[in-house]
């Protein structure tokens, strides 16, 4: 239906409106992907905790810090997609 509107939009529906709908659809697709990625980041952070309980090394703290920064970046990206797209 969106494609038909783009090819031959009605009198009150322009191609710009169609593009806007498509961009909105794309935006929420990115939000969904980003949200799933935040969940993956949480799993990675949790898994490091389980791994370091099994084997403790001097570099464990740095790895935990990297995973937390990674999680923070994923959350920031999700917020960016929701607010600024």
């Amino acid at each position: 239906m969106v494609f038909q509107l783009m090819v031959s939009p009605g009198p009150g529906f322009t191609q710009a409106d169609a593009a806007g709908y498509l961009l909105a659809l794309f935006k929420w697709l990115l939000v969904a992907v980003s949200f799933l990625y935040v969940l993956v980041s949480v799993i990675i952070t949790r898994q490091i905790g389980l791994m370091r309980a099994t084997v403790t090394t001097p570099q464990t703290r740095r790895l935990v810090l990297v995973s937390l920064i990674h999680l923070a970046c994923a959350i920031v990206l999700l917020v960016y997609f929701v607010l600024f797209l």
Partner: protein
Amino acid sequence: MPKVFDSSTYKKKETMKKNSSKSSPHSGTERPVRHRSVDEYSDVLAAEPNCDRVFTSFIPKPTRVSFESQAASENVVLLLRKHPITQLQWVITALVFAVMPLGFSYFPVYDMLPFSYKLGIIALWYLALFGFSFQSFLLWFYNVYILTDERVIDVDFISLAQKNITSAKIDNIEDITSESAGFSSTFFNYGNVLIQTAGAQQEITFEAVPQPAKVTAILNDLLLEEEREKIEGRTH
């Protein structure tokens, strides 16, 4: 007048002997349990300095390394990982995906997007790439093979959700074989060490570890020391 017999020093010596026999927990028929340092019985490890580098896969006598089932008297003598060259596949994949965004502008759909969308897509791409690389690194970093003075442990994180830990006592080891096949194995000096044990887990394999001949020599030293401890009664 010369001193023929000084009872004060004699009494002191007797008192000291009595005190030492009372304080010694192993007085009488018990022998003290003394485990030798690994440098004392293994020439191979004595020649290796203590190591704590991050991106290395052969770590002799690591400091500040421990694992969850480690006993208080158990010391880690060698920590092994797969040789870094075995990780080349995901490294190359990551590098290829890192340069792919340069070709995004050749796609008309991408080119028509506003700048904020392009920025978001690029950021998501590189964040996902970092996540993939970090996960691959973690699986390499925490899949370790641990040699202690008592046991051999294989820690396997098959995925982020699956863990497998196998251990065997050194004195249950029956056979040790090292194999190194292929050009890259020979060139980079890595290979497999197969350990046959008498326990429930009959075979433990150290896959693609560096310096497999040296690992085999260290295992032989540990095995010999266990035998000596049994003969000399230095076991728990």
